[in-house]
């Protein structure tokens, strides 16, 4: 906004928006006042909404906590908040949540980083691009699919696997006697598989942004590929990858449905990883909300608040790592032996390094939004610092919708190469490089196995019942053993609820984003930014819990599609705000200033120049948000009643609605073949819809890319 010299290019007047400056000038003051009032109002509304959520949850939790007769931290008996006297404990749940998430992150992080390295550094260019897309799409697969795969495929196989683990590691107390399919370890494995694509997608994005000149410098010094990675790629990406890992951890903490499906729950402090038992906060909410009365709801809300706070702290930590890491590296960079020029002239040289061109780098990433407008890197050589600055903010959107929250990183502009001039690679150095390459390929293969197995299972088992009848019929009057039937009722519910959510979230979100970018100053803007961050980390089950306890129980509304849309709206709002904000920021000030210079009032500049310019990016962000909420299961389970017949009216007070995830959830345990086929087909259909939305969103971003027009 500030300090950028307008360029000499003419902003083409928008048809309809242009016309004569005099026409535009009329009613300036009032229009500006109304517009700024509206955006400020939206920002304040957001704060009120967040305040209401927080106050309500705390209020309800407090009641239950004061009624509790057991020690909330150490109690490990039955979850019985509605008995008299009420008894429940959250400590064991929180411990279980941490344990499963830790297992997940220990398993997933190294593999994910290896995958990202393989894709960015080792895979052939064409392949890398394809793999990048696949990883991004996998990151969008909803958790119900992972849960389905977990319970029907992984759990039966885990019995043998955990036997092997306990044979090898049985001398360690946590790995004693593993003969069970369902354990916290199994839950951890599922979570690991779920967060792997997310961490890999963000890490890949970060590795791709390694400054080209540093890579070339490392090669120029005679570094092998592995040494180049160690000298240029890893130091550059360290903080970004660190925060990606923490974000993955945050995601694992809040995961509900997949864990609820595979975990054999009991309220104990889990110490034996391979034995059944343990529970997580989110899974406990999903299992107990249905039968909870007043105190029970309060108790679940209290546990939800604990989860919320932990997730928030984790995400906050991720941002701290990024910031801190960035600064530290900058300092180290300055003191380094070699200083690679800032932006400036970079060396043109041929090297064996066949990295994808930077344009693909940003273009194909988890954040196509970034690609849409924010690819100032699209030239082979970044020509100016301005380009680098633009890059700094662009990829953040990536992390936002890929990982659900947070900023991926602040790209440090300088990284140092430490170490002296390297001689021609010796045999051992070559060997080490080869080993590292082999290891990276191996991790990639390791990651591919479960993910390919999921896709294969869903496609192979889901495809034969997926036909036109399946798409146009409901499950009314279909017993589990009957063939036929379909999920038309669920498709309607899924689409309607997601669209309703978007209808509510997009206008509010866009106004808040406009406020933050164009008007935001001082306390209010800081508060709004903070609360958007908080909302980003809101576990989806907590959003559902809030709508359930306030809207349905508190205000006596019905558990219909609209209630579901409200919960999804809460989840979508921060995604829309974040992506719109980033897109609006990318609109160059020169455009705004040119518009002002023509005498166009601020509000018309925003509505006619700024927003249309950023629109493709915003549309992409919204579509990714829609795709994300379509796969939500946990909040929908809480607030929408499942029905097996077609109900096209989400506002109907007497009937609920089905959605694809809830169809899967309510049929996955069936022993009947006919029903199983339908479950898998519904899963395949859900994946197809979400993939389609993702691909279309990416196409819009790609299509609107500047050098594409």
């Amino acid at each position: 906004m500030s300090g950028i010299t307008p360029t000499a290019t003419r902003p083409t007047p928008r048809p309809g928006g242009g016309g004569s400056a005099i026409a535009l000038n009329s009613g300036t003051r009032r229009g500006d006042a109304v517009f700024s009032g509206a955006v400020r109002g939206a920002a304040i509304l957001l704060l009120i909404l967040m305040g209401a959520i927080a106050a309500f949850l705390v209020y309800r939790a407090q009641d239950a906590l004061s009624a509790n007769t057991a020690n909330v931290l150490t109690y490990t008996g039955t979850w019985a908040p509605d008995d008299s006297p009420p008894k429940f404990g959250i400590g064991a749940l929180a411990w279980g949540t941490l344990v499963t998430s830790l297992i997940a992150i220990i398993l997933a992080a190294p593999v994910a980083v290896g995958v990202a390295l393989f894709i960015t550094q080792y895979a052939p260019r064409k392949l890398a691009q394809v793999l990048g897309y696949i990883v991004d799409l996998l990151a969008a697969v909803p958790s119900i699919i992972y849960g389905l795969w977990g319970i029907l495929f992984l759990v039966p196989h885990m019995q043998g696997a955990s036997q092997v683990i306990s044979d090898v590691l049985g001398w360690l107390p946590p790995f004693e006697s593993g003969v069970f399919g369902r354990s916290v370890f199994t839950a951890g494995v599922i979570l690991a598989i779920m967060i792997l694509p997310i961490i890999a997608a963000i890490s890949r994005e970060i590795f791709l942004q390694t400054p080209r000149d540093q890579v070339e410098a490392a090669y120029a010094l005679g570094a092998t590929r592995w040494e180049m990675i160690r000298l240029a790629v890893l130091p550059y990406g360290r903080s970004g990858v660190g925060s990606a890992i923490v974000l993955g951890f945050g995601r694992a903490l809040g995961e509900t449905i997949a864990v609820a499906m595979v975990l054999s729950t009991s309220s104990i402090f889990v110490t034996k990883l391979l034995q059944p038992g343990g529970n997580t906060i989110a899974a406990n909410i999903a299992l107990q909300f249905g039968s909870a009365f007043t105190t029970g709801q309060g108790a679940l809300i209290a546990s939800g608040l604990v989860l919320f706070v932990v997730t928030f702290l984790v995400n906050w930590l991720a941002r701290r790592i990024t910031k801190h890491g960035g600064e530290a590296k900058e300092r180290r960079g300055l003191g380094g032996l070699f200083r690679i020029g800032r932006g400036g002239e970079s060396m043109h040289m041929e090297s064996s390094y066949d990295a994808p061109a930077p344009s693909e780098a940003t273009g194909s990433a988890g954040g196509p939004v970034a690609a849409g407008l924010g690819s100032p890197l699209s030239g082979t050589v970044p020509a100016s610092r301005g380009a680098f600055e633009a890059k700094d903010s662009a990829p953040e959107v990536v992390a936002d919708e890929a990982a659900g929250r947070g900023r991926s990183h602040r790209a440090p502009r300088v990284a140092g190469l430490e170490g002296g001039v390297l001689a021609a690679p010796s045999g051992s150095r070559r060997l080490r490089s080869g080993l590292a390459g082999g290891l990276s390929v191996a991790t990639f293969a390791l990651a591919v196995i479960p993910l390919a197995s999921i896709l294969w299972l869903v496609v192979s088992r889901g495809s034969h019942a997926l036909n036109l009848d399946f798409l146009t019929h409901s499950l009314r009057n279909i017993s589990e053993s009957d063939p036929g039937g379909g999920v038309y009722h669920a498709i309607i519910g899924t689409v309607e609820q997601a669209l309703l959510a978007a209808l509510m979230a997009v206008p509010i979100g866009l106004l808040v984003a406009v406020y933050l970018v164009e008007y935001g100053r001082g306390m209010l803007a800081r508060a709004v930014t903070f609360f958007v961050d908080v909302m980003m980390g809101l576990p989806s089950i907590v959003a559902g819990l809030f709508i359930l306890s306030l809207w349905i129980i508190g205000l006596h509304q019905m558990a219909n599609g609209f209630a579901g849309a409200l919960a999804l709206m809460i989840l979508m709002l921060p995604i829309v705000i974040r992506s719109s904000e980033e897109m609006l920021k990318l609109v160059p000030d020169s455009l705004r200033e040119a518009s002002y210079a023509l005498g166009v009032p601020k509000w018309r500049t925003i509505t006619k120049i700024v927003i249309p310019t950023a629109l493709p990016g915003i549309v992409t962000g919204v579509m990714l948000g829609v795709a994300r909420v379509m796969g939500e299961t946990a909040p929908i389970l809480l607030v929408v009643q499942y029905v097996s017949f077609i109900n096209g009216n989400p506002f109907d007070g007497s009937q609920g609605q089905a959605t694809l995830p809830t169809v899967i959830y309510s049929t996955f345990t069936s022993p009947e073949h006919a029903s199983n086929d339908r479950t898998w087909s519904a899963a395949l259909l859900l994946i197809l819809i979400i993939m389609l939305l993702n691909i279309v969103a990416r196409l819009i971003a790609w299509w609107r890319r500047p050098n594409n027009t």
Partner: protein
Amino acid sequence: MIRRDFPVKIHAGVNGRSAAVGAGVLALALASLTACGSDNNSSSSSGGSSSTTTSAGGSSSSSTSGSSSSSSSAAGGTGGDINCASGSLAGQGSSAQATAINQFVKDYQTKCGSGTNISYNGNGSGPGVTAFVQKQADWAGSDYPLNADQQKQADQRCGGKPAISVGTIPGAIAVMYNVPGVDKLNLSASTLGKIFNGKIAKWNDQAIAAENPGVQLPDLAIQAYHRSDASGTSFNFSNYLNKTAPSDFSAAANKQWPGSGGQSAQGSKGVAQAVASSSGAIGYAEVSYATSNNLKTAAIGNKDGKFVPLTIANASNFISKAQIDTAAGNYKFNFDYTYAADDAYPAVLVTYEIVCSTGNDSAKLPVLKNFLQYTAGSGAQSQLEKLGYVALSSDQQSKVGAIFAGLS
């Protein structure tokens, strides 16, 4: 510090294109919404389903009726007639009765056509009662009657008028097991108590071997599955264990499984699936789930230590000794766990339909009343045995039917 001019290039013509994209997406979405979907699944499956219905419902009366819409006449006995009413009805609760209720819903909807929509969500007795109290369900299925605390809240929900618990669908709780090579298993209540409390860890434990002379028991870890959600089946099974073998299962009956140790799964279906998929597993669920998962069931011990195999007749014998409590408009079964005949299977349950006696939503009352009457009538009850439940005696059927007929 030079910004390239790319956005300007974008800016030209952005509106048209992105608007087109938006319109396209919207049109796509709308097209998918307005495309004609159908609730009418009869064309593909009516032949099979309605004929099974009629033969089950009206086996005694005749086989003369066609498989077409005149199935009401085929539904047999006096109380079994389906009186149609249109409207929608939402019920949820006990997963133990889900198999039966879903069949009854199907009968009812098939007869009455697309104007009648009944949903029953078998997500557990606990959630059912909660949803009923929160007015999210028009009636609830629960394997235990309302307790005093719940009764108060339920009465409030019914506008101060009493909510009633009417035992409608009795069933038996199967102890299902998945032990390779073992086809017949006897387990006393005290052994079951030890298994479900984690006191016995292996299938070849002495306690089990002593009750099963001649059976080759493998050296395999026992995986005891219980319900992870609030469940009426848990309530009744823990009641049986606690009343029959209090020394080995001291915890009182509870809808949240009161035992210690073991593993858990959600819903009757979840438990059955878990048992079916893990070698060495044992679990409990209404017998229809054991049947549909092809799981073997154990003969369990009664108060006198005799082993009674699970058959519908044996369960029926035990249920027939229950005391009926009709106070306050309810129809409750109090089981007599001291009754120890050789042909009385003691792990049983009755699923109660919980409704408002008066003060029901007038728009829903006809379909609520008629549907529940159908479930208690002979047309529905005579199907129960085939579905894996126990039918009410004909005397009980008419009494329960009368209660439902009096709903207002």
